[in-house]
């Protein structure tokens, strides 16, 4: 029945059904949970379907992710929940469907932004580099592979380039 509904609606649902990893809803408590559940250094990247440099960055992140074996990455889409199908399609297209991925809950965006960082003004992409002890460095704008590799070198126990 579900598939029938999807067929009628003309929406490609397959990626969501078969995505390697579910996309979680990012609530006002999620940032704290993310920290509590990440014992290692990690990078959190906020992105949107409406942001061209974000899409370019996702492609780069996908490449780096597949070339390394220890990129601890968390992706958070700031798009609305109603765009889940598109979000999943993009994650798959960027080779990032296995990444820990979140999408903003349907509550006012300023609240969610504030829960992460009152000093973030909504520009995208926005990245946070966390050390193992969760001190963080925020960066606005598109990252490049060198930044990721350099961070990996400094923050990982073992790092190999496949």
């Amino acid at each position, binding site marked *: 029945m*579900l598939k029938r*509904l*999807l067929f*009628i*609606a003309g*929406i490609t*649902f397959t990626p*969501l059904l078969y995505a390697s990893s*579910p*996309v*979680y*809803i990012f609530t006002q*408590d*999620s940032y704290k*949970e993310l920290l*509590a*559940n990440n014992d290692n250094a990690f990078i959190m990247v906020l992105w*949107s*379907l*409406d*942001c*061209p*440099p*974000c*899409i370019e960055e996702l492609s780069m992140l996908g490449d780096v992710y597949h070339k390394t074996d220890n990129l601890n990455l968390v992706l958070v889409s700031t798009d609305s*929940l*109603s765009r*889940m*199908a598109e979000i999943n399609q993009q994650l798959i297209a960027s080779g990032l469907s296995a990444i820990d991925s979140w999408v903003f809950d349907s*509550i*006012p*965006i*300023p*609240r969610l*932004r*504030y829960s992460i960082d*009152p*000093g973030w*003004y*909504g*520009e*995208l*992409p*926005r990245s946070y580099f966390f050390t193992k002890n969760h001190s963080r460095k925020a960066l*606005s*704008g*598109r990252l490049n592979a060198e930044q990721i590799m350099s961070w990996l070198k400094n923050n990982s126990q073992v790092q190999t380039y496949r």
Partner: protein
Amino acid sequence: MRELNINSKMKISILIVGLLIAGISVNSFASHDGAKPSGATASGCSDINQLPTLDCTPAPSSVFADSGRLWVAWSYAGHVYVSYSDDKAKTFSLPMSVNSTPEKISARGENRPKIAVNNKGAIYVSWTTPLKKRFTGNVRFSYSNDNGKTFSRPITVNDNLDITGHRFEALSVADNGNIYLAWLDKRDRFKAEKAAKKYHGAALYYSWSDNGGKSFHQNQKIIDHSCECCRVAMQTDSHNLPVILWRNIYGKNTRDHALVNFKSVDKPGEPQRVSFDNWQVDACPHHGPDLSISNADTYHLVWFNNGEKNHGLFYQRLNEKQAATAPVPFGNYKAAASHPSVLSKENRVWLSWKEFDGKKEILWMQYSADNGDSWNIPVQIAQTDAGSDYGFLLMDSKTVYIQWKTSKDGFRLYAIDKVTGRD
């Protein structure tokens, strides 16, 4: 954490099914363009037997006609609608559909349907229709010469039909009836990328109509390398020519603002850089400027920037000779002051913007009685603990208002002369 994830997964599944069902309803609605209204409410947005209301849209635009009637353009489920209010947004007419054939319509934050009226009562509506590929779209336009009873068949204003970006349009009508559209255009980027060349950002293009919107002149480029996701601000001056303010890309990645005025209708002047905040970022700020022109062709500019030294909201005035005052910061940067609006009338200038204090979104206003030389203390106009749209300043013949739509209170006009004590 685990429990949260399971709940989240369930939530997503339920939501998707719900949306799909709603999507089917929406499509059904779209084919019932002539459905008789029956006082739809927000809960009736997906009811095929009811016409939608303003509560169904996230991003409306409004303007006062000389008659004092408020006209609002908004979109829902593939249609741009126009409705009006004769009692300052307390009640609205039934919505009139502008496009009889449904099409996708951009209606979020920076990009929403626009509406303008001329001094003879004609109504002009523009919007962006996204195409199949992401970040692409066409600029659409329609007009009504019979007080909104009927609208012309929408036309595409961009004369380049590559599947690329022609989006974030701004609409303005001059006193002589000329209609101007300016937008962010990626036709040159499209061409460059086909030739395997890099092209940064978009370009600013414009066109105009001198026959009431029946047709538009050949598109003209104003500048290459504009920022690509910020709204464009445009007003017309006393010479019936447009003045445009937008976020531009300078050098490799410096996102500052540029302004252009025109020598004649088909001759844009040289764009000049008006902000020097040096926000260097390869990102989408999603945060465009605003512009108002007072009677003496004095330009009042507001913008947001996030440079290392200069950050937050800024106001600046340019006089007839284009000499600029030093930018004046306003709003509380630490409370995420954002999305500014500016309005001017003779020597009076109003600013509005939004802030977030951790719990509430707050609509602020600040007023100057001396052409922006000095400012009163900022005043809170309204607040909400629900979500809200940007605020927009507008005025009828004697009163200034701020349009603010919140998900809890809906579309409201806040008369702000009451706050300043002026009439």
